[in-house]
């Protein structure tokens, strides 16, 4: 019995650790979107703010990146699903002896590194572009087409895998039945096979869009004049990040949760309706008086969806009304006081050191020991200054922490005293 509970406990602990590992970074990142410091961080918590969402929506490059990502995603969905469906159909109808070979060939793009696909797409289409005698800004090489083509090379394979799974459950006799009843091949495809494949096509489209949206390594070679969101983010990170990116991440997380819940809710609803139809009598079905279960009846996903939607609306409403100005002013005031204190302390220490130096001037050997009174930890770095001249150390002491964003924050930032938190951001 005890053993059993121990097993259970460890299982729960394992689950806890596992989910913390999975979701922890997302939670922390989301939280940083609401904290006021200019560098994304959760502690110390300063002020609740929504300004990073504002900053995000004022950022032209991010918005443009999102728009480009959507364009590329749409194109990739259309191309990949079409190619995936064609590939899947081929796979089910090809001569059995060729099937394994064909499968390997069509799956290969998934195994090829995205970087290679990106480079080869670029090189190949550049050749074609030149062969056609088009300029560098033609639609073939301006980035949009290249990115869609490049991403589709491997996303089509994902789509094919999804579609093949459904197609394997398709009874070819259904197509034959349609043909037998007078349908042309096109009609049989459109009226029988396509409706059957619709759920898988929807899954493949979502998968293709997400794969396209998050793709970086292929796109980085092909984006041209159409930098996607991932490209823009990567370029931004190179120059330092702000919580505006956390805000974007938070929005994506919320949208994902809402989409997942909506999907789950509609699936459950369908199941419940199907169950109700199974139980219904002919009379009920005919009269159309069949009582279908309500949307929220025993459908936790629908309830959760509504809850999330309500919270989102509430947060957005709060954001519109709430102003963190007072809090930020308080925090700044506090920071200023702290900084003043430190400066005072530093000045006092320097004064002390100068006194010591003056005392030791008569003696030949200077003591190399780090000044024990230094609170900053940089004491050792300033030691040479002790030998040559004391006045140089001062500007250094003021600039150094600016470059080091993490350990000391804005405490030493002279701008923090006057200009608020933006100085720290620029330093980052």
């Amino acid at each position, binding site marked *: 019995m005890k053993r059993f509970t121990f097993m259970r406990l460890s299982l729960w602990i394992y689950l806890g650790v596992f989910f913390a590992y999975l979701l922890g970074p997302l939670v922390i990142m989301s939280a940083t979107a609401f904290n006021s410091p200019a560098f994304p961080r959760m502690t110390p918590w300063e002020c609740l703010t929504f300004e990073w969402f504002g900053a995000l929506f004022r950022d032209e490059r991010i918005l443009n990146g999102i728009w480009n990502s959507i364009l590329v995603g749409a194109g990739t969905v259309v191309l990949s699903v079409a190619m995936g469906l064609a590939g899947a159909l081929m796979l089910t109808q090809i001569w059995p002896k060729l099937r394994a070979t064909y499968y390997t060939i069509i799956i290969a793009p998934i195994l090829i590194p995205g970087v290679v696909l990106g480079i080869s797409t670029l090189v190949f289409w550049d050749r074609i572009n030149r062969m056609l005698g088009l300029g560098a800004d033609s639609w073939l090489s301006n980035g949009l087409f290249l990115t869609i083509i490049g991403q589709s090379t491997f996303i089509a394979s994902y789509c094919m895998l999804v579609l093949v799974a459904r197609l394997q459950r398709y009874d070819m006799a259904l197509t034959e*039945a349609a043909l037998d009843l007078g349908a*042309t091949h096109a009609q049989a495809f459109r009226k029988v096979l396509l409706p059957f494949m619709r759920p898988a096509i929807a899954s493949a489209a979502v998968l293709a869009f997400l794969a396209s949206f998050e793709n970086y390594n292929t796109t980085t070679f092909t984006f041209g004049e159409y930098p996607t969101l991932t490209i823009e983010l990567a370029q931004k990170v190179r120059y330092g990040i702000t919580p505006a990116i956390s805000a974007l991440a938070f929005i994506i997380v919320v949208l994902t949760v809402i989409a997942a819940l909506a999907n789950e809710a509609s699936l459950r609803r369908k199941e419940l309706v199907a169950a109700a139809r199974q139980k219904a009598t002919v009379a009920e079905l005919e009269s159309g008086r069949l009582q279908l279960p309500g949307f929220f009846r025993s459908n936790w996903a629908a309830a959760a969806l509504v809850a999330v939607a309500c919270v989102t609306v509430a947060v957005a409403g709060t954001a519109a009304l709430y102003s963190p100005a007072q809090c930020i002013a308080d925090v700044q005031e506090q920071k200023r006081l702290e900084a003043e204190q430190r400066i005072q302390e530093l000045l006092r220490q320097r004064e002390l050191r100068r006194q010591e130096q003056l005392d030791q001037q008569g003696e030949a050997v200077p003591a190399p020991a780090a000044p024990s009174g230094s609170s900053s930890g940089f004491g050792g770095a300033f030691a040479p200054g002790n030998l040559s001249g004391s006045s140089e150390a001062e500007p250094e002491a003021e600039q150094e922490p600016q470059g080091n964003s993490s350990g000391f924050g804005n405490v030493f930032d002279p701008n923090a005293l006057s200009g608020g938190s933006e100085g720290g951001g620029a330093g980052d």
Partner: protein
Amino acid sequence: MSAGVGVDLENLWIRFGDFVAVRDANVTINGGDFFSFLGPSGCGKTTILRAVSGFLEPSGGRVLIGGNDMKGIGPNKRPTALIFQNLALFPLMKVWENITFSMEIKGASARERRKRADELLDMIALPGQGGKLPSELSGGQRQRVAIARALCAEPDVLLLDEPLSALDLKLRQHMRTELREIQQRVGITFIYITHDQGEALTMSDNIAVMRAGVIDQIGDGKAIYNDPATAFAASFVGENNVFRGKVKRVMGNEALIQTNRSGDLVARISSANQGRMKEGDAAMMFIRPEAFALAPKGATGTHFVTAKVNHEEFEGNAFNIFMEGDGGKELKVSIPNLGQSFEDHTGQNITLEYETKNAVIVPAGELAAE
């Protein structure tokens, strides 16, 4: 009934690689007939059906429907409708949409389609069920929907590929009658594929018995049952007792057979083989279980068989006696139950007699697997 469109197979060959699925089939199916292809699974009967419906191009020979060569004409252009073994109802369409699919293809309006669907649903005794999905119907109902869907296309020839095999026994027997009624009502040619000789005999005007790609015999039910052309046809259709032996003497339409274990017996040579059998030929003689009668003990002659009884059973309408037979197979005798007293013979030797016209001789050949 002669108004219907006939189907002719002329020297039809169908090969899959090295495998010959159908070997030189020649069949004439009269318009308005209920014609069955009867044979064990794998004998090529479904292949013939697919060749008629247009899903398979023959490797040789011709398929004619209403006298027109169907070469190069696709399944959607042939005046045939096929009822698939698994029915192949469209799972995502409602019953009425399924039934009127052939009208949708031609661009009929939803109102026309509903009207026609209601007529057909009445005909197949499923009124008011048009709004359901196929998955919400029972096996027999689905069966009837498949028939209605095929009939809605107004084919000249309806092809049925073992459509009753998935149903339970009671329903199967009911559907036999129903199919036959539908066929007589619509008056079109039905080509029916089955491995169930009961279905073939009860429903068909004519039957082709098939074995391993070859058509052994074509004839109506009585001819197939009473006058089999081959050992296979004799043993596949209905129950039969086989006596192996050699032809000792041919006497016109009859012959004397020297059997391996029951002495010399006289029987009729089946009509397909008359004039073709001569002395010394290996032959098989077949007598149906119900063609025997009990004879006085010890009677001898060329229409008496004596053997030891293994066991007996009472089936209600008949007493079945199982006796030691030829080649390890039991000899089965059915004595109709007419209220007579019936004593137990287990372990004894009994003597049976038969009328010469009820015993047929065919050349020795392959028997149907049990």
